[in-house]
């Protein structure tokens, strides 16, 4: 990159907020995705929308790639600066501008940490429901750009259901506002939805208007162990058929159960084919009634053992196994690929059995856990990325896994995003027509292809 461009960027953000040393550049060459790393040429940390606008104008005129990022916790290489250029870190824009309890709205800068928004909302008895595993570290802007999900997807939906509007800087530096505080708003294309989940390829979000909902008054957590996977699957369908929508409905497969038991010794039987974690929330009276019905469904479907938490400490204990899933798998080797292939709810048992077969066939350790209620599975592949022979088998297993998900009517990604990690399977899911339509949108909004180029829809 020419020195005069770096100087211009320095003038925009100030000496303190531009990083150019080889060490600093290296520390922005990765995100939380294994296997993707590339050095940027400069890192800038803007503090205002106007600065973002000026940076994009320079980048657009000089056709320099721009990689926008928050905390860099994504699992799809979405923020890896694969073509060098500028990494733009949004974490300095971290103010909660307004909490409007009359309209149940929060207006935030994109660098606000999701948990901080929830802490602020809690004072009004409200919650911002999307809760990806990274709530304590991920930025709101990042979770909107990735359209992140979480544990409560079944009942509360995902990020896109909460984004009401935004301020976004377009590739040429122009600042656009879309959406607003209105519950109903059909004026024009739904640009808010378009930018939500666009993974930094269409614009840079500089302000967000998000919806809040009243916090549930009561919760009840249960854990059930199954000797047969189909019984667990039937339980999930049975709960929904009884018109109960639990806030969380989590599943762990046999491979995960074995690893977790070995690591955390939480008392799970090693021959269990599935564990379900169920939480119902809402009005205290309704919660009790729903919990009763869930217990009946568990009994009908041959749950081997059922535990109901009576105190917060017991809730914590029930969650210990699920919480230990990722660390326990991680302990086994140096690299883990935590994927998020998703299938319609009714296909979960079929998908889990398929993953088990794929793991055996390619001799790869895959533990699967995830959100059974919304079909969002996390098949987690344990390996060592430095072992070439093993990685060939890992990638072959991944290929078969994603094809299986798509063939079951599922999707490549429930909540982590496509980025680079799953790009190669996009055409499989969307076909040429679908890809061309998406690429046309990309080219229309970013004609010089400077925004996170090569990601999500690939080269244009």
């Amino acid at each position, binding site marked *: 990159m020419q020195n005069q461009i770096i100087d211009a960027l320095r003038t925009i953000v100030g000496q303190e907020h531009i990083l150019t040393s080889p*060490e600093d550049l*290296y*520390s922005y060459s990765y*995100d939380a995705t294994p296997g993707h790393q590339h050095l940027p040429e400069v890192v800038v940390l803007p503090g205002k929308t106007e600065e973002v606008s000026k940076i994009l104008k320079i980048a657009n005129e000089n056709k320099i790639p721009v990689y926008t990022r928050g905390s860099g916790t994504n699992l799809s290489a979405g923020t890896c600066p694969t073509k060098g250029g500028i990494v733009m870190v949004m974490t300095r824009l971290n103010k909660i501008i307004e909490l409007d309890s009359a309209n149940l709205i929060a207006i935030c800068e994109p660098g606000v*940490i999701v948990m901080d928004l929830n802490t602020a909302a809690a004072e009004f008895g409200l919650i911002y429901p999307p809760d990806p595993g990274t709530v*304590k570290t991920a930025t709101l802007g990042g979770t909107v750009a990735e359209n992140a999900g979480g544990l409560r997807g079944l009942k509360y939906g995902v990020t896109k259901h909460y984004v009401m509007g935004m301020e976004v800087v377009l590739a040429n530096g122009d600042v656009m506002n879309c959406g607003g505080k209105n519950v109903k708003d059909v004026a024009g294309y739904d640009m808010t939805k378009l930018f939500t989940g666009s993974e930094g390829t269409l614009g840079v979000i500089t302000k967000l208007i998000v919806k809040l909902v009243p916090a549930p008054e009561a919760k009840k957590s249960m854990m059930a162990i199954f000797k047969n996977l189909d019984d667990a699957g039937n339980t999930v369908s049975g709960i929904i058929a009884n018109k109960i929508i639990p806030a969380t409905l989590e599943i762990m497969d046999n491979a995960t159960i074995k690893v977790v038991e070995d690591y955390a010794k939480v008392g799970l039987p090693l021959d269990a084919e599935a564990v379900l974690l169920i939480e119902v929330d809402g009005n205290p009276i309704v919660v009790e009634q729903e919990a009763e019905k869930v217990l009946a469904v568990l009994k009908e479907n041959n749950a081997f053992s059922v535990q109901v938490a009576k105190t917060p400490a017991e809730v914590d204990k029930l969650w210990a196994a699920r919480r230990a899933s990722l*660390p326990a798998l991680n302990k086994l080797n140096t*690299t883990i690929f935590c994927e998020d292939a998703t299938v319609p709810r009714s296909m979960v048992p079929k998908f889990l059995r398929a993953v088990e077969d794929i793991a055996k066939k390619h001799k790869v350790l895959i533990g699967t856990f995830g959100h059974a209620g919304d079909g969002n599975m996390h098949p987690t592949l344990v390996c060592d990325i430095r072992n070439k022979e093993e990685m060939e088998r890992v990638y072959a297993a991944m290929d078969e896994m994603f094809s299986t998900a798509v063939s079951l009517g599922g999707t490549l990604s429930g909540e982590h995003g496509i980025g680079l990690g799953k790009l190669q399977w996009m055409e499989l899911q969307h076909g040429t027509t679908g890809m061309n339509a998406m690429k046309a949108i990309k080219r229309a909004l970013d004609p010089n292809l400077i925004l996170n180029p090569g990601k999500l829809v690939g080269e244009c």
Partner: protein
Amino acid sequence: MSNEITAKDVNEQDKALLIDIDNALANCSKCGGCMAVCPMFKELGVEASVARGKLALMQGVLSGTFPISANFDKAMGLCVSCKACTANCPCGVPADELIVRGRQAVVKARGLSPIKKNVFKLLQNRQLFDLALRAAGLFGPLSFKKLPRPMAAIARFPMPGMDAKRVTAPFQATPLRNQYPETVKVDNPKMRVAFFTGCTINYAYTDVGQSVINVLKANNVEVVMPSMQHCCGTPVFTSGEVDLGKTFAKHNIETFERYDVDYIIAACGSCTEAFKLEYPHMFKDDAAMKARAEKLSKKTYEISEFLVDVLKFRTDTLGPVNATVTMHDPCHMARGIKVTRQPREVLKAIPGLNFVEMKAPDRCCGSGGSFSLAHYDISRQINDKKIADIAGTNADIVATSCGTCRMHITDGLVQNNKDAQVFHVIQLLDKSYKAGEKK
């Protein structure tokens, strides 16, 4: 044949200094969970300030991208060793230990910073160190002005390497160990313990040492303070001077082995951690030394832990201490030796004492031992958050179990115009026993 050293040669040599932790570094999944708990990252907000970034930088050296450079050194220095990253890592990566390894590589590749080099040179010679700090105590009043609060002083004129407004602990004219015979006897002793005083208590906060002795005497425990004991070595070790740290460890192991005692106690989280965890770990490749270190480790307790778990201290002679007290858990207490319950039990046993928890009591106060010397501005910013949490409790007294935390929080209270005072937990118990005598 060319003798010229190329950049590649430097990179290769620096790689060799870190190659043994290649696998340990690879275990970091880069999830970034450490960002949620790192006090340094909260202030600086850049990747190189948090564990994920620091571990990545070591991988950068290993990949030959850059050598162990001045920037690498700076990044490794930006850590208060509070262990919050390690305690919260879902992958179980011992990031704090790996950062010390990074510092060790810096020392080998580039040498120590000149200030640390001089301080450690002095530390190396036990007698000279003792003399220098005693002189500091004798001549201290000339250069430091006492503040109207216990154990707080401010420099009368600019001191090299110190912020002019900063409040520190005054060095005492007579160190603790010179105030007492080596063995402090009691009638009918029920046990005999060796007291590892550590430097802050011996030379500065002698009031804490006096309280330890008073409390143990009140419980019929004979106290011996081995005269040859020396700095635990933690400041040197965490700066990356691993070999010098080992020399200190060996000296202390040899010293304490010579005494026939039931237990070894210390009144500082870091000092206790040195005996309890670090010494055996330091000698993991030397079976004989490791066995000797482990033998002492098993006997070592932090004072509150000892009083509650071993001694079952007497509560029938306690008198009232009428004060509202909150507690700051030093990093090496909370995440090092994991002792947070016992100091609270001690405080709650004191009649009249109203205990109030502050928000996040185990969040680092920003001192980081010698970190605050090199980076006073950052450590002040971290500390201001702690002071706000303390102010939120309306407590009159902040209890803690670490000398450097006490010093840094005292400084923070003065800088933020707050009246609360800081004491070691044991001082409040001592006060309570004294109040009981008056009854």
